[in-house]
């Protein structure tokens, strides 16, 4: 199982691997690097991870989502390294026979990934670079 990549994300390939003939719904979420954060212009973001643990944590979340929505097939890829505005940082795809479960499962997957997976981002702004979250939460 490999959920992390240093390469640009191929969302179409992710979907193609997942989709079954019994599926009637496909929900894709992509996280994208935006050009601002809390009032500051963002030029680029560096994503860092505790890789082996992040792989395990994402695997656990995916497993949990599969258990919670047995009809849903889910997969995701998170990109690491240096990303610029407009780049996709994460893609999650959920397929199911009907749309409700696919929407719910996709939302749950991204929300849980944001909560526990050891991945960090360092934003580059005109004022310099800063690790997101460090000043506010500790």
């Amino acid at each position, binding site marked *: 199982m490999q959920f992390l990549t240093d390469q640009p994300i191929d969302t179409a390939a992710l979907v193609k691997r997942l989709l079954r003939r019994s599926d009637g719904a496909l929900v894709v979420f992509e*996280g994208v690097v935006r050009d601002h954060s809390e009032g500051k212009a963002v030029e680029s973001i560096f*994503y*860092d*991870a*505790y890789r*082996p*643990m*992040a792989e*395990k944590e994402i695997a656990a979340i995916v497993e949990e989502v599969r258990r919670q929505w047995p009809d849903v097939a889910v997969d995701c890829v*998170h990109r690491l390294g240096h990303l610029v505005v407009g780049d996709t*940082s*994460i893609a999650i795809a959920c397929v199911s026979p009907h749309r409700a479960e696919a929407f719910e499962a996709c939302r749950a997957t*991204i929300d849980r*990934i*944001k*909560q*526990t*997976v*050891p*991945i*960090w*981002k*360092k934003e580059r702004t005109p004022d310099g670079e800063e*690790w*997101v*979250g*460090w000043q*506010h*939460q*500790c």
Partner: protein
Amino acid sequence: MKVRLLFFAVLRDIVGKSEADVEVPDGTRAADLWQRLRGQYQQLAAYAQPPMTAVNESYVRPEVVLREGDEVAFIPPVCGG
């Protein structure tokens, strides 16, 4: 006993390295290692409570007692996605 500390993100920047092997007495808890780091690095002095803590790639309570060879990582606030 010896344990390995791993540093990521802001902690790697502050400490200036990505890992360190440290010698600690038996009975040392992960939280004790955090207090030791706070004593060593001025930028951490304000953070009395350890951040989320992982031992051997799993989250643990900071009070967990370490064992020889454990790999300890303090996890700054995560923000994947």
